[in-house]
């Protein structure tokens, strides 16, 4: 792979974006690629938007993705996908968890958010909260999303498994791997038979 692959992971403080992006970056490093990543700390845990840029390829210079150059956006929350949509490059894929977290003082999102996201991203995986609520514990939902997004990532599944072993908090590697597999299976199923648009 000569080009740099740009993945943008976004969500709301406390959703585990940093761990997901660490696993992704480690998976790329274990595949023998150069990797850089960049994220924002600080306000993150107080309910503000959080993001992490992960870039991998033969040689990566900047830890920051240039605007309009993301190949994949993984969002833990629908409005966050919309917020970061302008970072998408041509033909970018997206993957999001359909579980809105309303900002303080906001009652509901504009109507048609799901349709708008589907319009913006022809290559889209939408994970329904209902489909993972029971099978995937809250703490590893971020890893389920990463599993779903992995269908768009040019990395071997083995590298993800190895990265999870290295980085999952003590005692949680199995739960993380299971969540990853669940997410991956859901995404594969969805890409086979296009979901109905609600």
């Amino acid at each position: 792979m000569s080009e740099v692959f740009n993945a943008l992971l976004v969500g709301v403080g406390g959703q585990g974006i940093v761990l997901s992006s660490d696993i992704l970056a480690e998976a790329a490093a274990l595949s023998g690629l150069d990797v850089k990543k960049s994220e924002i700390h600080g306000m993150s845990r107080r309910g503000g938007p959080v993001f992490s840029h992960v870039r991998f390829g033969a040689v990566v210079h900047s830890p920051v993705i240039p605007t309009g150059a993301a190949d994949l956006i993984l969002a833990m929350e629908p409005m966050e996908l919309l917020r970061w949509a302008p970072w998408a490059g041509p033909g970018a894929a997206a993957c999001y968890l359909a579980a809105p977290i309303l900002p303080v003082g906001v009652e509901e999102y504009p109507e048609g958010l799901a349709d708008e996201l589907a319009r913006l991203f022809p290559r889209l995986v939408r994970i329904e909260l209902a489909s993972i609520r029971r099978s995937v514990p809250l703490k590893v939902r971020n890893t389920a999303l990463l599993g779903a997004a992995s269908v768009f990532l040019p990395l071997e599944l083995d590298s993800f498994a190895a990265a999870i072993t290295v980085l999952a908090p003590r005692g949680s590697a199995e739960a993380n791997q299971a969540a990853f597999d669940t997410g991956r299976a859901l995404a594969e199923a969805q890409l086979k038979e296009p979901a109905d648009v609600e």
Partner: protein
Amino acid sequence: MHTRLLSGNEAVALGAWEAGVAVGCGYPGTPSTEILEALAGKPGVYTEWSVNEKVALEVGVGAALAGGRTLVTMKHVGVNVAADPLFTASYTGVRAGLVIVTADDPELHSSQNEQDNRNYAIAAKVPMLEPSDSQEAREFTRLAFELSETFDTPVFLRMTTRLSHSKSLIEPFAGDAPQRTEAPLAPGFEPDPRKYVMIPGHARARRVAVEDRMQRLIEAAEDHPANRIEWPDGLPADAIAEFGVITSGIPYSYVKEVAPQAPVLKLGLVHPLPRRLLAEFAARVRWLYVVEELDPVIETQLKAWGIDCVGREAFSGIGEFSPTIVARGLGRPLPAPTLSPQLEVTVRRPGLCPGCPHDHVFTELRRLGFIVSGDIGCYSLGVLPPYNAMDTLLDMGASLTMAQGMDLVVPPEQKGRIAAVIGDSTFAHSGITGLLNAVWNGRDGLYVVLDNGTTAMTGMQPNPLSGERMGRSDAPSLDYALLAKAMHIPDDRLAMVDAYDTATISAALEHLAGQSGVRLLVVLGLCLIEGQKLKRIEKLDLKKTVRRELVRTHPLGGQHE
């Protein structure tokens, strides 16, 4: 070390440890905090959170003079606090290596200003290194110790938010794990009053030594290994390139991203600047660009030397750069955005965590019509909706002292309506002296310490009020009641209340608002996130009991047993 992907901060810690650092100290501040956290617990090094940056640097200078390599970390504004010892440590020199990390925050991701601390390096006459990625952060930390010892000077290592918090690969270890090399000096203090006792007579002589050192540093900068020219392959060395770039730090990575073929002079030693190297590079390019975040430090120096360059005309001095901004400034093609959302994006503001124990105080202060003099930390979020309950915020500790200043001149209807609100870590950092000032000068004021048991904003570091020190080992914690007693604050003007006891908080505020003189209200609650952590290490119950006891023995009005 199970991964080679390190953040810039982790890499500084690794580099320091590999270089045989003996002492690491600092005050937590985003984006510098993780450096000491990564260093703590490594064998052979003592680490501490000091009560503030001035203290940390003084501990550091002492350790270095006694012969131990020392790393002192702080965020950019922390250097303001440490500036007093800094300027004179430049005179005393260090003996063993002393490296001061300043983590600057272009774009003010989590700071109250955007200062460029290269200016401190110039003003204090202290050399400064600035890495561009994690491997360099590791290497430059070692180089900084070496430079420090060779030239007997403190050395700055400048990080920025993007560098501190981005991860990149470091070079593999020689064996399986990092190797620590022994520092060259053996510990042991050797008295030398003419060098270490800065009375004017001695300092005047040292002033000359500093100047001489600066001259030698300027010479050494010319071929310091951290500076290099990257000339494109295939372009003859004697050719004149169409354009070239002088840059340093994280902007270097953006330059390589958007103009990989451009000739680049990459500065790793950003103070002092290598005049001959710069001139040589300038002579080999037709258009010379300077890509530097924040202040035009390199640009101004080049122009003073009569070297023509493009800097601020093409790049703003405000905020953080990005590949896009650098591409635009260099006139490189930019990818056009491909998607244009037709729905409006909903704003998401950070706020106090839902259920944060301290939100009630803000609501009440507003209800009672107080002017709220605020301070640094989580509680600065009290300025945002839904609280809208903060009127001023300047720096660590300024809540108490600004309130005193305001009270001196406000008209009668605002008299006695000013409350200072400060967190526990900040109170220990520089709030106590403000309280002492109020008592000493016989001032009036309502001072509220929101004690959440930790330094929450930077990620749960212990402080002198939380009963723990770095690494969570137990420590005595400052006793508010004895402090108040020592300051002659009468019992009926001190209250300690439970943050969740909203009725008592309201009553206490009303009671204290009606009094005069110095009044101290301590609102004890546990940060929710810290609470979860304490639970995991089975310390939560103990901590809660200690706090309940404080509330029981120091209720409103001093009616305790």
